[in-house]
């Protein structure tokens, strides 16, 4: 018994202390995957805030965007033209979703809209595989002028290896969040979007049609998805396996609160780092692979304490 307690409660920390460079490496890995989780969660939050739709298709949108980019490039389209085309594709997708899915389903219960986005997921998977083929592809990292090498940071008596692409990802993610923040704080459409999250009527009074807002947020989510897809694709490769990883965004979301942008970012980082630490230092005890569920368990434990999430608003029940 004492031995078990020792293995669980003492050993991992001893390891962290004795191999600090490795610990920092783990933290960095966790942080990077956390950023990617956060980006996917960000797409969810944007859409949920504006239309109360729990967009299950966010994960596949990431895959779809990345696939389109690689696919277009393979057809001989120059990289940046392909990137531009992909942005247009995401816009077209946003418009199509608003017209064909959201508008006819307006005022339906949440679960129905949720299911519709799963339907959308199937559709996009089928479409993506049909057009671009199902096999994994390599992201056109260098063509997009993204760095590929790695820095070696000699510190704490050891070495920490930082992939340049990861640093780029962090920078781009930060930039994207900053841009979004500016857009939402400073523009009319941003104000409308914030209003709509509280009250649909109030949003109308801002003078922008609900439909427009929906298109905008789905487009924004699409762009976020494209960026996420590039980053993620550059780290591994572009395949449909990504969509299961995208499910990780769910615990991130509940941890952060479904409607909170800072929550999504914080949640992403917490989950990313927590998961990596757990896997490296404790996973071995359970035979490994605990990464697949640890995030959910962390989120679940957290929810039991704070049901509305980290940044969610407190629910007061009334009769």
């Amino acid at each position, binding site marked *: 018994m004492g031995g078990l307690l020792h293995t669980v409660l003492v050993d991992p920390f001893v390891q962290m202390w004795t191999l600090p460079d490795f610990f920092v490496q783990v933290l960095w890995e966790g942080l990077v995957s956390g950023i990617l989780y956060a980006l996917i969660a960000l797409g969810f939050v944007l859409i949920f805030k504006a239309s109360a739709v729990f967009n299950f298709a966010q994960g596949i949108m990431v895959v779809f965007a990345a696939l389109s980019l690689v696919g277009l490039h393979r057809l001989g389209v120059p990289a940046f033209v392909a990137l531009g085309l992909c942005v247009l594709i995401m816009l077209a997708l946003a418009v199509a979703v608003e017209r064909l899915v959201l508008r006819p389903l307006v005022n339906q219960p949440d679960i129905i809209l949720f299911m519709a986005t799963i339907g959308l997921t*199937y559709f996009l*998977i*089928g479409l993506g595989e049909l057009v671009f083929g199902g096999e994994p592809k390599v992201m056109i990292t260098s063509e997009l002028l993204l760095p590929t090498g790695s820095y070696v940071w000699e510190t704490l008596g050891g070495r920490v290896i930082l992939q340049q692409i990861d640093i780029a990802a962090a920078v781009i993610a930060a930039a994207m969040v900053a841009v979004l923040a500016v857009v939402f704080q400073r523009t009319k459409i941003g104000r409308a979007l914030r209003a709509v999250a509280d009250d649909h009527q109030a949003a109308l009074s801002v003078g922008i049609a609900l439909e427009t807002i929906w298109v905008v947020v789905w487009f924004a989510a699409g762009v976020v998805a494209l960026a996420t897809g590039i980053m993620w694709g550059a780290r591994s490769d572009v395949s449909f396996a990504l969509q299961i990883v995208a*499910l990780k965004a769910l615990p991130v979301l509940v941890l952060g609160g479904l409607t909170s942008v800072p929550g999504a970012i914080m949640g992403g980082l917490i989950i990313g780092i927590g998961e990596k630490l757990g896997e490296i230092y404790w996973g071995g005890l359970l035979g490994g692979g605990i990464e697949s569920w640890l995030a*959910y368990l962390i989120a679940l434990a957290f929810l039991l304490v704070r049901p509305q999430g980290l940044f969610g608003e407190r629910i007061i029940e009334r009769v």
Partner: protein
Amino acid sequence: MLYRETGQFKTSYAADQAVFPIRQDRIGLALILLVAFLLVPVFGSSFFLNTMMIPFLVFSLATIGLNLLLGYAGQLSLGTGAFMGVGAYACYKLATIFPDINILVHTLLSGLFAAGIGVLFGLPSLRIKGFYLAVATLAAQFFLDWCFNRLPWLYNYNPSGAIEVPTRMLFGVALTGPNATPVTRYLVLLTLVVVMTWIASNLVRGWIGRSWMMIRDMDIAAELIGVRPLPTKLLAFAVSSYYCGVAGALMVFFWLGAAEPPSFSINTSFQVLFMVIIGGLGSLAGSFMGAAFIWILPVLLRALPEMLGVTIAAATVEHVSLIVIGALIIVVLIVEPHGCARLWQTAKQKLRTWPFPY
């Protein structure tokens, strides 16, 4: 049009509360049962039974299970696949540890294990609602999935990581295993599904079902009427998981013959969830319709090119059918968000009142 109800009057509450108070409905049900028990086994090919009817029945049962939880008690779960897996692995373990006890007993017992696990993961439902709860059940899904992969004891250390169904007999007839005929498996499955559907319909019509619906429709009012949320929700989780667990056991023992963890993955959870939604929340009959729609339609879609004599690459067919199914789901949700059951209800109401509109 078809309905003629003049002169059908009830002289007792029992008759008034019957599931099918209208004579024409009772005749219809009798016909369906007749077809299912007689015509399908006699005329159905092995292929038809194996690829359509048997999976349809398995999924119908799982759908009823999830529908009890989601449609009646209003608790969203994304862990159906895992709960089915618990039933399957429990049944497998029971069947190998106690080989002399009848496999049907094991099947029914295995549901209890799923129920226990279901209750455990249902505990957070007291504090968490809606999508937040869905994430809690996802924890169950991924955790259990991991268990199926990483605990070799569960699959008896089989190097392939799969569970393989042993042959089990009843009255000298092979019920499970490679020697069991599709007709035998179909009939056993059908009988179980009919009985369990009957039990589910009993439950939802009594105070238990009403308590679930009270929690679903307005949990605060339910509480003030004296329904304690936690036991009520946990009972819903338990019963639902039991049904899913039995469905999982049946899936392996009477349909697949062998199974690996992917059979109980998140995709299965979503598939069953779709069956519930497309079939109709809070409708047992809808569960069957949903299972038929989501299972049989893709099978047909895949078979379609062949039937038309067109040769298309299998992968392409697969992709196109995904596109079609995804689009169809959205279309069905738009046309009737309450699912096939509501569609049927509406149609039936029209038939009952025709030529009047109401």
